[in-house]
């Protein structure tokens, strides 16, 4: 291997094992090296599998285990007792209900507030536009706990502590960045000529927006809404600080569970908490992977 090649391999990071395979596949030579690289690649996939999926599977097993001692690789007894505990405990089921109330409210409120702004950011070049986009980003850089502590002071004086609205605001703060950036990129990607063409054949501005612009931006808006829903659904710290003792959602309850309940109950609750994420992300998978998320992170 030449010096140039080995340098490239270092730059490629973990992909190093696979690069030469691609090179070899182009030519007719299939050498011992290619077989070795294939095995290395396989090993990497196995490591990735264990690293990525292992913890989740391990937790899933725990949700059904009756007796499980180190160093057994599987539980000795299986049970659904943990599931019964979770569904019978009024606190736990109440927190599930609350979570499903807050997340949709926050998502819709966030969409109502941010989507018009996203449209304005992409269509109008007003002074201070870039500064505003960047300051949205700066809010993302301030550590959340510090922010929540600072917000708590303001919330006390506005009587928002322990209220529904207070929790909605705390959760909404975490969604503003997604809800503005991702749709902004999507609106910007729609050629103006399309809108102008629609207007030329006699469509009014509203009609142009709802028949041309919106349908084209819809996938990105869907991604933004799902990310917001999940951000709201998973938000624990701020909700805890503002909502206690009236509004304890699933993720806030999770902290208590991890510390105070049997491991198995926490595992069951964790599995339940993951359900909405898995379902929603599966729905949006195509668009998230297709780059809708990535496009939102480049300021133009």
């Amino acid at each position, binding site marked *: 291997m030449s010096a140039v090649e080995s340098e*490239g391999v270092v730059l490629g990071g973990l992909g190093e094992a696979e690069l030469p395979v691609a*090179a070899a596949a182009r030519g007719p030579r299939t050498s011992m090296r290619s077989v070795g690289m294939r095995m290395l690649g396989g090993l990497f996939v196995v490591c990735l599998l264990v690293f990525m999926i292992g913890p989740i599977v391990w937790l899933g097993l725990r949700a059904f285990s009756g007796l499980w001692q180190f160093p057994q690789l599987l539980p000795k007894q299986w049970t659904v007792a943990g599931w019964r505990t979770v569904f019978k405990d009024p606190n736990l089921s109440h927190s599930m209900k609350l979570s499903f109330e807050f997340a949709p409210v926050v998502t819709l409120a966030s969409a109502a507030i941010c989507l018009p702004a996203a449209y304005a950011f992409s269509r109008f070049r007003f002074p201070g536009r870039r500064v505003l986009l960047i300051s949205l*980003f700066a809010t993302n850089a*301030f550590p959340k*706990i510090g*922010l929540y502590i600072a917000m708590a002071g303001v919330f006390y004086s506005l009587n928002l502590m322990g209220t529904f609205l207070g929790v909605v605001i705390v959760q909404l703060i975490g969604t503003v960045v997604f809800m503005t950036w991702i749709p902004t990129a999507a609106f910007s990607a729609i050629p103006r000529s399309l809108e102008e063409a629609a207007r030329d054949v006699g469509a009014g501005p509203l009609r142009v927006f709802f028949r041309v612009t919106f349908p084209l931006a819809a996938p990105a808006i869907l991604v933004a809404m799902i990310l917001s829903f999940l951000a709201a659904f998973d938000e624990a710290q701020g909700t805890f600080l503002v909502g206690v003792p009236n509004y304890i959602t699933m993720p806030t309850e999770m902290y208590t569970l991890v510390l105070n309940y049997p491991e198995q109950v926490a595992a069951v609750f964790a599995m339940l*908490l993951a359900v909405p994420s898995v379902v929603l992300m599966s729905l949006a998978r195509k668009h998230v992977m297709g780059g809708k998320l990535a496009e939102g992170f480049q300021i133009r």
Partner: protein
Amino acid sequence: MVLPPVGVIAVFIGFPVGAAIAYTLGKTGGPNSVMSLLAQHEHVAKHGVTTAPYREMLSNPSVREDLWSTVWVTIVTVVVVVLVSWGIALYLRLNDTWLARTVSGLSVVPLFIPVVIASYSIAIFWGPDGFLRSVAYHLGYHGFPSLGFTLTCVVLAEIWVNIPFGVLMMSSGLNSVPNALIEAGRDSGASMPRVVRSILLPMNVIPTVIVATFTGIYVLGSFTVPYLTGPTQPNLLGPTMSNFFTAFSQPQQAEVLAMIVFVLALALGTAYVWANIRASKRAGATS
């Protein structure tokens, strides 16, 4: 149309952050008076400002230890996430086999799992009765360390959480490099590593900067991951901040830590903004 979100941000982030900055400098009146009622061991500036809260926190040895852990955990996580996501994205760009599709599927799994659950399961997985120790035991290696509730576990969990974003950003960047360009490089005799170094690497700088800064900012400010997977002491500044507020009732000290993290994050943020502006200027010049 831009007003509503900017207003929400200004009222619920800008204003509290401004008040918090004043608070850390010893201003306990105005919007800080309620917090000040609850606060223990507060530094008050009679006139002007005081840096006493900062001096107190920065001379506290355990806080310094936490600050140091925060910095190295962040650096290690950023480096690993950038390298691994570059590697995976590059592999996906150059291969379209079932193996590549498996890798791409695996690398976005964390997007589907709430962070609370991820942290909890990772702590158990690497913990004293976790999978790796059990497997090592069966393979005859009884001394495998328990990594649960150590800073190493925090790094592992932070990597786990940040990989999908890294891979998605890098893939999106690499996919925007036209195939023709790669083919052209290959046809003129460049080896694959050479193509990567001279074509793909320079064209993927912006996504790399974005991944590095966002991962860094995420780790610096993270709470859930270190809280659930890390040791009691020393841990990252996120949990320490929360301790100073809830356990010690010292909001002023907590805010000082928040400011320190904020300054570190802003330093990273500057790199991000600079890279973006440079890129959009260049795009403007060519089009």
